[in-house]
């Protein structure tokens, strides 16, 4: 039996082209492996001892490189807006069958726990691994669980919009407060004693912003997931 298939020339040439490109890349990368050297991150680690919170990644994400995070929130916001714009309500595509009773009960029981865990990850983002993005995505995964297990479940569109608007606006307003009080956008204007590092109430504006980011990410991801499941009630 001949199991050899004819491979189209397009595939072969694509294979050859990408192989050549990647081999060149590997050669250059291996020739000059970046080993230990002075990086900006080390300076930020030192600076973190004076101005930061216990989780240095959080300080970098929210404070030292705060504008990146603002921009990233904007990207997510626009994407969820675009998904909502594209996928108009289409009731025919709703799940037809009611899912299993066990799945329904279990997911109803699990959802509060997932929500709690998401909020925990969000609120303790400046002390332990985790933070707004991770917490927000955990919450959205809980919403996804409910969406696939309950035929008629839906987070009301207005709730999602309200959360994301309030979160987005307050993020920029906190930035403006920093500009007014400290003369730098997103400055840390809430008193933060560095001796408190490691406490829940520490770091001034940093945990606040990360919670806002969490709310925003959670609501937007839930919105995207819900829209992709064709259950949008967008008018």
């Amino acid at each position, binding site marked *: 039996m001949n199991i050899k298939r004819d491979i189209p020339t*397009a*595939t072969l040439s*694509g*294979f050859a*082209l*990408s*192989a050549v*490109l*990647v081999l060149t*890349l*590997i050669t250059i*990368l*291996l020739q000059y*492996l*970046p*080993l*230990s050297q002075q*990086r*900006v*991150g*080390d300076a*930020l*680690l*030192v600076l*973190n*001892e004076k101005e930061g919170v*216990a*989780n*240095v*990644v959080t*300080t*970098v*994400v929210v404070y030292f*490189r705060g504008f*990146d*995070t603002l921009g*990233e929130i904007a*990207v*997510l916001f*626009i*994407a*969820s807006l*675009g*998904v909502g714009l*594209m*996928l108009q309500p289409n009731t025919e595509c709703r799940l037809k069958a009611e899912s299993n009773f066990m799945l329904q009960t279990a997911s109803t029981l699990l959802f509060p726990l997932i929500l709690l865990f998401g909020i925990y990850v969000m609120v303790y983002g400046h002390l*332990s*691994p985790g933070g707004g*993005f991770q917490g927000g995505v955990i919450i959205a995964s809980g919403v996804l669980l409910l969406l696939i297990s309950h035929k008629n479940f839906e987070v009301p569109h207005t709730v999602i919009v309200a959360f994301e608007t309030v979160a987005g606006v307050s993020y920029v307003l906190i930035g403006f407060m920093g500009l007014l009080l400290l003369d730098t956008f997103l400055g840390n204007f809430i008193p933060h004693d560095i001796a408190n*590092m*490691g406490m829940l109430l520490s770091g001034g504006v940093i945990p606040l912003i990360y919670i806002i980011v969490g709310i925003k*990410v959670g609501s937007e991801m839930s919105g*995207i997931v819900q*829209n*992709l499941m064709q259950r949008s009630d967008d008018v």
Partner: protein
Amino acid sequence: MFEFLNQPEVIKTIVTLGAMSLFFVGLFGLLTRKHIVKVFISIAIMESAIFLLFIGLSFNREKVAPIIDATQTQVATMNDPIPQAMILTAIVIGMAVLALGVSFAIEYYKLTGKTEIDTMNEMRF
């Protein structure tokens, strides 16, 4: 017997080879596949390859995670936090673009029934 694997050069070579072979898979898919969802998957694979390359090459085995707690207070022994922060941002952006692309593709499919990118040529007339 395998102690030589702990040397930073060896680790970094392995990371580079692995990430670049993943990049190759994505690039190959991007150049040869026609189905729109496969193209999106190829793009996602290429992105992950770059994330892996960055984290792998900037990671130092001897250092710990950059979180200050009761047992870890020396910043000199901590890993660089910037790559992690950058990749966190890049992952979210990549996901947002993919979600948007998939929604475009769904809507386009509903209107025209086409899924292959080489048949998308409404403009030629």
